[in-house]
């Protein structure tokens, strides 16, 4: 049975990470996503590692290949009038157009919302930018890693008494991309009922703040943000990352109730902890958290992290080691759920990529194909979709419109 977005076509002008994350979700659901790229200015992700054997090649970046699965790609120089005209023809036969150029660029190319409406009056167009399409700083430039500090997430994250921290990845990008894909489908749903397309202004900064909403409530209610306190939690104790046996080995443990704390004490063979007045209630455990953490770490530091996880889980305690990348990719849980995608790719062969986190019972989704190499679908798009003859295509290549 067809995927939910089967028959939907997406004109994909995006690059770097946020935009491609959005359009990959749409591809996961069955949409035909056509990436328009140019070798004149290669997508940032294609020029970032990892590449097999560390050899830079725009067609073999693992970073690009992870977030562009299931898409098609053509070469088209949008800065040429002829290229922009072809892009408008692609938009004419599309349902959705997504771009994340710097502010104003898409309009200068003759591919702004008003231009696209002229060729396709119910097009859904989304602009994804760091700051949004309006506001005094709309022309500022931004990338996903900057959204972590900009959104306030950095100032909230950190060890007690230390400075603000990044969160280790460009979290603003996937957060924006997932919210964006949801908004696109909502707009499609509306279009089908009313015949009306629309323009969606997506600010990465704003979607990044949407996922720390409770922190803003703290600030608004009490005039101050929640304090940085490592991996502690105001409503749970113990709640931390504890050292295990071995180099750089750890386990995350969190107890949500007195019962779970009792179960933890039993599992670590330290029943005396339960009776210790310093740890009798959540309030006491919070007040004596350093001593509590030390007592727990005296057990974990002798344990293999996975053994500790099994022992604690058997007792009903939430515990999991922080998995390093290899362990994620070899996780028995993820393997059992068939999470991984391993398509043959012309440049990198078969590599393992993260798949689709939603498992649909009646219309199961699958990644249709590996991420495209540059220009992979020129023949399909220019020939089959746009009906150009080989002479016409050769002329476009010669005039460097296709490049």
């Amino acid at each position, binding site marked *: 049975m067809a995927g939910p977005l089967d028959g939907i076509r997406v004109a994909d002008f995006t690059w770097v990470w946020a935009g491609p994350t959005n359009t990959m979700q749409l591809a996961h659901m069955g949409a035909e996503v056509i990436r328009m790229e140019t070798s004149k200015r290669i997508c940032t992700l294609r020029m970032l590692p990892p590449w097999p054997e560390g050899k830079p090649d725009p067609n073999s970046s693992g970073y690009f290949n992870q977030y562009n699965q299931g898409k098609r790609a053509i070469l088209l120089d949008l800065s040429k009038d002829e290229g922009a005209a072809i892009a408008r023809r692609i938009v004419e036969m599309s349902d959705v157009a997504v771009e994340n150029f710097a502010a104003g660029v898409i309009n200068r190319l003759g591919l702004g919302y008003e231009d696209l409406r002229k060729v396709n009056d119910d097009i859904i167009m989304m602009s994804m930018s760091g700051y949004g399409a309006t506001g005094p700083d709309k022309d500022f430039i931004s990338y996903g890693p900057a959204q972590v500090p900009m959104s306030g997430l950095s100032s909230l994250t950190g060890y007690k008494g230390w400075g603000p921290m990044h*969160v280790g*990845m460009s979290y603003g990008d996937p957060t924006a991309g997932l919210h964006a894909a949801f908004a696109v489908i909502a707009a499609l749903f509306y279009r089908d009922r009313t015949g009306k397309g629309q323009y969606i202004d997506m600010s990465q900064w704003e979607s990044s703040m949407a996922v720390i909403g409770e922190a803003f409530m703290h600030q608004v209610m009490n005039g101050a943000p929640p304090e940085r306190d490592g991996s502690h939690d105001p409503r749970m104790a113990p709640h931390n990352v504890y050292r295990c046996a071995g180099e750089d080995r750890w386990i995350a443990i969190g107890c949500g109730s007195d019962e779970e704390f009792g179960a933890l004490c039993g599992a670590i063979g330290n029943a005396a902890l339960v009776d210790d007045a310093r740890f009798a209630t959540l309030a006491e455990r919070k007040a004596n958290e350093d001593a509590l953490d030390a007592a727990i770490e005296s057990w974990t530091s002798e344990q293999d992290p996975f053994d500790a996880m099994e022992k604690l889980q058997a007792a009903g305690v939430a515990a999991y080691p922080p998995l390093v990348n290899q362990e994620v990719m070899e996780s028995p849980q993820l393997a059992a759920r068939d999470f991984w995608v391993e398509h043959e790719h012309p440049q990198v062969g078969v590599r393992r990529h993260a798949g689709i986190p939603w498992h649909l019972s009646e219309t199961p989704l699958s990644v249709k194909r590996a991420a495209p190499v540059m220009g992979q679908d020129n023949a399909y798009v220019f020939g089959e979709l746009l009906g150009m003859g080989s002479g016409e295509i050769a002329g476009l290549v010669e005039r460097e419109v296709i490049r």
Partner: protein
Amino acid sequence: MMRLVMPDRALEGLTIIEVGTRGAASYGGKLLADLGADVIKVEPPTGDPDRALGPFPGGEVHREKSGTYLYLNTNKLGVTLDIASEKGRDVLGKLAAKADALIHDYPPAEAEAAGLTYDAIRAANPDIVMTSVTPFGQTGPQKDFKANDLTMQGAGGWLWINGQPGEPEMPPLKAFGRQPSYQGGVNGALATMGALYGRSRGGPGQHIDISIQECIAAILELTLPMWSYLKTPVVRWGQRPIHPIDMFQCKDGAWVFVLCIEEHQWERLVELMETPEWATWEVAADRFVRASNWDALRPFMEEWVSQWNADDLYRAAQDKRIPFAPVSTLGNLLDSDHLKERGFFVEVTHPEAGTLEHAGAPYTLSETPWEIRSPAPTLGQHNAEVFGGRLGLSGAEIEALEAEGVV
């Protein structure tokens, strides 16, 4: 599904039942409600645990004033129902019968015990889309593992990469808040919306099984390819193959985020720094080389940054189209002229909690604006409206359910 001639809101006419106690369903429900879906939030008679989570004004616990609850439940109708009781289950079935989708976040064993299974819900409504957002999904050897937002950051592979680089004594660090739950929520809303859209075009009702572990593993930037392409283990904040990507404290005590992605941005930064000698050294020659030598170069950058006030430096860099960013405090954000002009923060007035500014729209739709139509419901606020008005239960029937503690 109700058909409307010209709805004002993108999702107007959709009815969603939300049964959640862990944040993920609440956030998914909020995303749907804020674009116009009719979301009926089903809480246990004691209330969603988020009502006890806070933050609270002055730290004083009050079930109608929890900031987490107030933020996550705008635009919803709120009812109370003990779904674990037989009569409660029956009422839930009646709600499901009139709904387009049901989204919940009960882990498999708890859902099974409460009768919150796809078989039961489908029996009430064969066309429904039912979405289960759980830590590890419905299948696999760890499906019943206990979990929370901290351990899920671990299981997804995120915790390992967060923390202070170069400090082997410091543990991996949790990112603030409930990010795995939020990711489960946005994935839940996205997949639910996809399936509903498919259904509106002739597709079937169905069950969607979402694993939060997978939601996290799917967004780790280049963490996983580092293994599948290079067999290289990642380290704390180690996925920075290019530099500068770093954070520094400025003269005024505020912090700034120093970032150059493209080489031409670095060239303009060197100009802004007035071409110091170190920036011309071989070890700073390009973004990859700078990354290999960042430990040696970092002190020079730190020294230069420390001569600036943070906001001045941020704006000076942006003037030269270098993508520096502020390390914002929440106070900075609430005061931001840019966000004010865009109307990002919105005032929401709640009958008990008063008027509070909320983080607002993650996207701006030209025809069907995101909007707050009503604040989070008080506990059981819409029992009469939903059980009476929508399900047609009589006053006596509702009273009987109340007397038995079902409602």
